[in-house]
């Protein structure tokens, strides 16, 4: 019954930066609006796009401010900000970067991270076990969906996947997510059968 467009948990804060959050949606909206304004303000004064790291620092700084003042409460959200770093002056291409912020106001960089829900800790262990360096897009998408499947009821309708690349970003089509989900479930079945027959 609900219009899914209105409960997006993955939003753009700038042309090349994307933010996903976990926690109080109302608080997220306020913080995201502040961040969008800051990104445009940066573009106006510096005539350049803000780096992902700059935005993460800004969000963290804002979240911290609300922990050390009277009459306010901390933002009840943790965020994951993703994008690409700028190409270096030596001509190296930009690299994908992922930052996390929390209600305390800390920000840190991650190669893989999970926020929200009650199982964040165990899911992080799952990621640590299965993350490999230099995974390609398909493998990374698979890992993300595998982790999500641990906490959501199976189905692409319960998932949002945004893929951020150097030249742009796009949400994954529901049919594409379904295909990966199916493959994962099939392979899980096969390994279960293999285990049974070997016992």
């Amino acid at each position: 019954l609900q219009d899914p467009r209105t409960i997006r948990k993955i939003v753009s804060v700038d042309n090349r930066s994307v933010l996903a959050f976990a926690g109080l949606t109302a608080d997220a909206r306020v913080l995201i609006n502040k961040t969008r304004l800051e990104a445009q303000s940066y573009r106006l004064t510096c005539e350049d796009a803000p780096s992902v790291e700059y935005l993460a620092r800004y969000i963290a700084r804002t979240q911290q401010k609300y922990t050390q003042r009277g009459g306010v409460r901390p933002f009840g959200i943790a965020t994951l900000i993703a994008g690409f770093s700028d190409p270096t002056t030596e001509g190296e291409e930009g690299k994908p970067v992922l930052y996390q912020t929390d209600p305390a106001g800390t920000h840190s960089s991650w190669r893989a991270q999970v926020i929200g829900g009650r199982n964040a800790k165990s899911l992080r262990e799952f990621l640590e076990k299965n993350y490999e360096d230099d995974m390609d897009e398909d493998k990374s998408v698979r890992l993300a969906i595998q982790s999500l499947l641990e906490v959501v009821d199976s189905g692409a309708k319960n998932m949002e996947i945004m893929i951020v690349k150097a030249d742009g970003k796009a949400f994954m089509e529901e049919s594409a997510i379904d295909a990966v989900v199916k493959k994962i479930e099939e392979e899980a079945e096969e390994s279960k059968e293999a285990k049974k027959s070997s016992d």
Partner: protein
Amino acid sequence: MDTVFGVKYDGGVVIAADQGNARSILMYQRNLDKVVPLSSHSAVGVSGPNADLVNFSEYIQKNIALYELSNDGMKLSTHAQANFMRGELAAALRRGPYQVNVLLGGYDESTESSSLYFLDYLASLQKVNYGCQGYASSFCLSIMDRDWKEGLTEDEAVAIVEHCMQELHTRFLIAQPNFIIKVIDKDGVKTSKFGADPADT
């Protein structure tokens, strides 16, 4: 003194401006681009002191970008952009006015039509079919009055602009050798031609 032209045609709008940047007896630059894109399908030709020209147009540009980002990619119509711009001019008028005179042109995909708006430093706003800013209006409005008609093509609209440029080259005291002409249609904003490459050297 800057010159800005705008001509609406069937399916788009042409915005042109001279490329000079001068003050007092000094000519700072001959390749300035005074037609600033505000969104994917709109641009504004600005005239006035360089500080206000750049400051005001960039300010409006970033605010329009903020709106699109904050509203799930919804684009502001040309009419809305013009009224927003006028509001900012009016608010600043009794504080510290922006000394800019502009012609804002845009193409709206929702109505599949183009529009052109005339705004001046006193925060006037008027939808027009063609217009000029600067001393050029004394020479060229009459040419546009004569040449413009309903249902022009892009080439015909650019021809009107070039007719006006020719008149200025003949009769206007101040030499403005370089003009930049931009066209806005369903495919967005593109530069049709320029006298000097505005790219930073």
